[in-house]
């Protein structure tokens, strides 16, 4: 199908917008550096707690920065570069609007800069991978809409009637990410820098992980599969192994992925039927995931020699292999028994990085090595350097993954070890931490290797661009308009494949089915709440303390969910119930236990213990790796906003007493004074009755003390 016959009529000239692709490419390369660097810093902080230098450099604040930078800045810009580059060529047309493209680019970079500023300042909604505060949420949605208009506008003015499978993946991405992000971020602002999520407790947990897992599905999987379906055939110069397989695995993938979210909540207080659904669909996901991976690898049939000679192909094949590994492990971890061992440990962290470093990272690197020379109209500076990058990178990922796998299984086994009398063998949590600290260092080494390989990419790209011609002409091609003369008659599914609107609606239905069946029943939480389990709301001061807990990102290392498994109950007390967190906005069930679970922390230790522990954890527990929070002792509680917060919570259905409602401010001050007086009598010199530490202690002492068991 070439359009070389120039004598035919219907030939038009199309000039691609490559400038915008170049901009997104450079942004990808820049932000990747930041995301990887922050990753290494927080990896080291876990082994050397003294590296938590100041408030805004603590693990709890940098970890959200790392995840958001990796997700939205690195993967995001890479997706935009790849989509804009491949879509123009697949549809034989220029992007819909140069203005929208520019707005998309600068808007997105502005959002990232805002994230880089606000997250270290502790401005956070406290929901994983969705920490950004509401003004940034709104900007993200607006810029995403700009992207959607630009993309669908391009679709409308295309000169190729048929939509290649990569375009389907892009469409599913755009539609689903918008839905996920908006639903998960619905909140009520109480100021420019703070808001409360409308969902509470279990609803919030369910919606958060519906979002969280589908961020993996529709931000890190579908767009990258689309990129794979374009760039792998392109780089190997052969069509995809089986187009039929791509059709079947596309629909299976988007239909099933949306159900899998609750596998992040296995063995928790989540209703059993949701856990079963999540497990079933996660296990079924094996098939479409491997369908994609096999389709990718077998595209190289008859061209395996490229695997020896072409670094780009090597990166792609390594990426697909890592994808296959990660999507093999995912369903495995979604089986309740396996999950009870792996959940809350570093195994999950290893699993995630197998996907992000291996699949997303390597696919992006392959894509960069492929498009940078094309975009700058030159050759890649050094193939050899790209090869070295590949091997250092693989070594880094293996170091990372193996150490985290070992750390996770070691710690998981230690948590559940019981002796002949049914007692915990390692009742001190910190014992299980000391054991894996060497593995934390190994992990950091893996990260350093991965970054070292990446530095070679930086240099290689720099040299490539430097040797490029000064004047870059935008690629202009001759396109024969095919719409007037169809290549063959349209029937049935062929028509569907050509109709972007119908296709988009079908894809939307596919993802809505699972979402509605899972989420709708829990929106009326009262069905699951046992009314005999009465729960008291947090007092205004405890609420202020909870805000500090969220702001400092305590949930990045501590869970508040005692699972329904024996070892959890032995260590932390009776399993958590739905009722206990029914007023929690946002829920803080957590996903990782670098430190112990806190669901029933209240009254376990005296106030003074908490005071000393927050000031310097190692003064109380010698081997602790928790950051110190000395600034909590000097900075003041924001009493004035409490009135507003309490009445907002009351409107949302939290049963506050009339006294709390009318006088939240003073009630909080009274409670703070009591705590400060006790601390003073025990030897604390400063008056801390208006300091943040007091509110935090009040909150920590209230955990598990409000009824609902």
């Amino acid at each position: 199908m070439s359009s070389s016959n120039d004598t035919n009529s219907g030939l038009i000239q199309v000039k691609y917008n490559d400038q915008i692709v170049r901009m997104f490419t450079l942004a990808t390369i820049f932000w990747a550096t930041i995301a990887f660097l922050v990753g290494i810093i927080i990896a080291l902080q876990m082994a050397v707690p003294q590296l938590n230098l100041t408030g805004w450099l603590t693990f709890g604040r940098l970890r959200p920065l790392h995840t958001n930078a990796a997700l939205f800045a690195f993967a995001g810009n890479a997706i935009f570069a790849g989509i804009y580059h491949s879509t123009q060529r697949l549809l034989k047309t220029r992007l819909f609007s140069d203005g929208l493209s520019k707005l998309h680019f600068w808007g997105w970079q502005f959002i990232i800069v805002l994230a880089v500023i606000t997250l270290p300042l502790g401005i956070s909604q406290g929901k994983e991978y969705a920490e950004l505060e509401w003004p940034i949420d709104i900007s993200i949605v607006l810029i995403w809409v700009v992207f959607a208009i630009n993309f669908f506008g391009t679709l409308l003015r295309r000169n190729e009637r048929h939509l290649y499978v990569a375009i389907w993946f892009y469409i599913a991405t755009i539609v689903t990410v918008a839905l996920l992000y908006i639903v998960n971020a619905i909140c009520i602002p109480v100021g420019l820098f703070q808001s409360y999520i409308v969902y509470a407790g279990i609803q919030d947990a369910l919606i958060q992980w519906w979002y969280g897992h589908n961020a993996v599905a529709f931000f890190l999987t579908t767009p990258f599969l689309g990129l794979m379906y374009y760039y792998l055939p392109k780089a190997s110069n052969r069509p995809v192994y089986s187009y039929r397989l791509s059709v079947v695995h596309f629909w299976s993938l988007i239909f099933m992925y949306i159900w899998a979210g609750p596998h992040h909540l296995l063995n928790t207080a989540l209703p059993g039927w949701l856990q079963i659904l999540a497990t079933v669909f996660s296990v079924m996901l094996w098939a479409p995931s491997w369908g994609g991976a096999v389709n990718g690898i077998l595209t190289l049939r008859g061209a395996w020699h490229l695997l020896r000679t072409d670094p780009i192909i090597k990166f792609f094949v390594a990426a697909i292999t890592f994808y296959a590994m990660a999507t093999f492990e995912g369903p495995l971890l979604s089986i309740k028994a396996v999950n009870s061992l792996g959940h809350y440990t570093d195994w999950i962290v290893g699993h995630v990085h197998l996907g992000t470093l291996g699949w997303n990272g390597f696919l992006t690197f392959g894509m960069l090595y492929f498009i940078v020379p094309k975009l700058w109209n030159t050759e890649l500076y050094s193939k050899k350097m790209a090869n070295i990058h590949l091997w250092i990178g693989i070594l880094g990922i293996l170091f990372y993954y193996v150490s985290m796998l070992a750390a996770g299984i070691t710690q998981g086994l230690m948590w559940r070890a019981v002796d002949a009398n049914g007692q915990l063998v390692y009742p001190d949590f910190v014992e299980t931490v000391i054991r894996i600290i060497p593995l934390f260092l190994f992990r950091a080494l893996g990260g350093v290797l991965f970054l070292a390989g990446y530095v070679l990419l930086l240099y290689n790209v720099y040299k490539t661009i430097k040797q490029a011609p000064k004047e870059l002409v935008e690629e202009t091609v001759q396109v024969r308009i095919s719409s007037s003369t169809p290549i063959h008659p349209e029937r049935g599914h062929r028509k569907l494949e050509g109709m972007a609107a119908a296709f988009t609606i079908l894809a939307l239905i596919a993802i809505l089915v699972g979402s509605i069946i899972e989420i709708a029943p829990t929106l009326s939480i009262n069905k699951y709440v046992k009314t005999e389990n009465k729960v008291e709301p947090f007092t205004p001061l405890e609420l202020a303390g909870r805000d500090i807990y969220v702001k400092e990102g305590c949930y990045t290392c501590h869970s508040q969910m005692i699972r329904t498994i024996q070892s959890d109950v032995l260590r932390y007390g009776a399993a958590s119930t739905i009722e206990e967190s029914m007023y929690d906005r946002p829920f803080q069930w957590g996903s990782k236990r670098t430190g112990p679970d806190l669901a029933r922390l209240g009254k376990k230790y005296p106030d003074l213990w908490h005071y000393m522990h927050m000031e310097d954890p190692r003064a109380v527990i010698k081997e602790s790796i928790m950051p110190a929070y000395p600034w909590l002792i000097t900075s003041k509680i924001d009493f004035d906003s409490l009135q507003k917060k309490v009445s907002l919570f009351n409107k949302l259905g939290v049963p506050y007493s009339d006294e709390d409602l009318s006088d939240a401010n003073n009630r909080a001050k009274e409670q703070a004074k009591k705590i400060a007086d006790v601390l003073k009598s025990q030897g604390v010199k400063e008056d801390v009755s208006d300091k943040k530490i007091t509110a935090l202690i009040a909150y920590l002492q209230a955990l598990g003390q409000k009824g609902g068991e």
Partner: protein
Amino acid sequence: MKQFALSQFNEIYLIVIGFFLFFSVFIGAIFWVYRKGSKKHYDYLSQLPLREENRT
């Protein structure tokens, strides 16, 4: 209505019907992509990324 739907979750026949529904859609999709005359179409589609237009 919703309560009713949820109470049916233990109903084995519904689960089996649900399973067959999903399964038949999946099998249907496979038959669909192997429908008569689809090969030519899919060959055309799979060549789309490889078609280089003439540069000017």
